[in-house]
């Protein structure tokens, strides 16, 4: 898993490694706010990522806060590739893992209910346009498609109805697997080379 993470992170640099032109790599931080919209309406999304820009490529890691349907924290690799001479237009892909939000346990006289959210696949990919706003900073607008998955597990432990009581049933389990396809639009502030 860790090995795949490292490979994914540096994949773009492998692509550019054979270029003849010598360019110095530079650090770049990106703060993003936007909206994700799907069948359940639109919800805000926030992302922070940081990584290395090398030539027309950027590769980094980031974390987000996604409020669509169920709150989650996507952890992702951030790949961007500038297009054209000025690299104002860019395409991006953010594959990662969607970390779930809450864990609750509710105990009543009647039964115990345990709820857990489990993570899943996350992908945000799209196209954007940069507007330089200084030597080391630029604003960017982007639009893309987000695929967000996770599971919600509910366990009902029913009590013994009468005493003494044996042969209690195993806890009743529900696992709901959600997959959301969303369109996203974002505004980012990029800082760094």
């Amino acid at each position: 898993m860790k090995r795949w993470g490292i490979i994914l992170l540096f994949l773009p640099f492998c692509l550019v490694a054979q270029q003849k032109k010598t360019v110095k790599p530079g650090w770049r931080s990106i703060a993003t706010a936007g909206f994700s919209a799907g069948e359940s309406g639109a919800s805000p999304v926030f992302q922070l990522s940081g990584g290395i820009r090398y030539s027309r490529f950027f590769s980094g890691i980031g974390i987000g806060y996604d409020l669509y349907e169920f709150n989650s924290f996507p952890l992702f690799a951030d790949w961007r590739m500038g297009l054209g001479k000025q690299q104002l237009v860019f395409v991006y892909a953010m594959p990662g893992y969607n970390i779930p939000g809450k864990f609750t346990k509710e105990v009543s006289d009647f039964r115990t209910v345990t709820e857990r959210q489990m993570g899943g696949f996350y992908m945000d990919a799209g196209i954007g346009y940069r507007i330089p706003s200084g030597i080391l900073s630029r604003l960017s607008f982007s639009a893309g498609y987000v695929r967000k998955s996770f599971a919600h597990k509910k366990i009902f432990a029913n009590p013994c109805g009468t005493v003494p009581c044996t042969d209690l049933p195993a806890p009743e389990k529900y696992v709901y697997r959600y997959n959301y396809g969303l369109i996203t639009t974002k505004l980012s502030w990029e800082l760094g080379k």
Partner: protein
Amino acid sequence: MNKKLTVEMLSFLLITMMLGMTACVKNTCKQKHTYTYFEPVYKTKTEVKANIKSNPARQLENTGKIYILGNFIFLNEIDKGIHVIDNTNPSAPKNIAFIDIPGNVDMAVKGNMLYADMYTDLVAIDITDPNNVKEKKVVDGIFPERYWGGGFVANRNAMVVDWVKKEMTVTENCEEGDAVFNGRADIFYSAAPSNSAGAAKSPVGVGGSMARFTIVNDYLYAVNSHDLLSISLVNAADPVVKEDIAAGFDIQTIYPFEDYLFLGSMGGMYIFDISNPAKPVAKSNFVHATACDPVISDGEYAYVTLRKGTNCGPAADELLVIDVRDLLSPSLVKTYSMTSPHGLSKDGDLLFICDGKDGLKTYDASDVRNLRLIKTIDGMETYDVIAMNKVALVVAKDGLYQYSYADLANIRLLSKITINK
């Protein structure tokens, strides 16, 4: 030219991508439901009757009520039948036989005849020879409430003799809901199907405080949630229902004392006069908070344990001592806090209370206004107790215990028959 081509290509790609994305903008949800259900195993009534005999002894698994007659202990295995235990030597009781009675929860014994419920029926069994008991009569349909949950009534020509536990996992779209019923009306999906879980004088047997059956002289009295039945045992092998009286609501236990019956209900305690044994007459009632409440009496005071939780209601866990010297006007003497009280028993001035996970508590009850705790025997989850002849027979979650209290300073364990869960 190249720049124009690039812009056109990018525009085309962008539009194509946006259209593609629109088709993919949707929420999907798959639901996987894993649950346990219990499927009934049926036998015909003829097969069931043929099997009401002394079958080989079985291990105790899910025990309910107890009844003592002479040197024998009769211990209910909920909905399965009755264990016959030879208790000639309380230090070494012997589990000698098992009487298969499907649907059995309650019992009472008089002389050589054992009366037990079998779902909606009453069965009379000759136990002259506990190793060779014989079914004498089945009185059909006198406990109509003993159907199987949720209104389901089994095939009238068949009886449920067992339940098989099964696990199932179903995967479907969330919006399709649960398809767990599979077209079956006779299977249970949550807790194991089970029903709620016998003192009197010889020659009738002695039951615990959780009993719904009791015998006074020539009459068997049985309660269901609303009714009190008087059943004549003048001809012991041919029980005859005499009266079916609307007695109250949520009745759970019955306890006899002299010419009175004390009925414990979730909402209070009812007192019935049985001067005319065939036709009990309501005398009075004492209302308390909603709870599960076994009741016993020594004639002067009634002792009621209230237990909250699960199906028992929201009242506190406590022991109520009620003055019943004036049966027309019972009055509360004092309330004692408990942990999770179940069955109780009284022998002279000693009061024994099964306090759930706290174990068995023994009190000096010579002064009901100041019960004095003599000893707590913990390490077991107790359910019911019968104390007589200086031996306390305790039904606990993990076994049937017998304690000698001949020496109060040294209440000691005589024996234990383990319950195999």
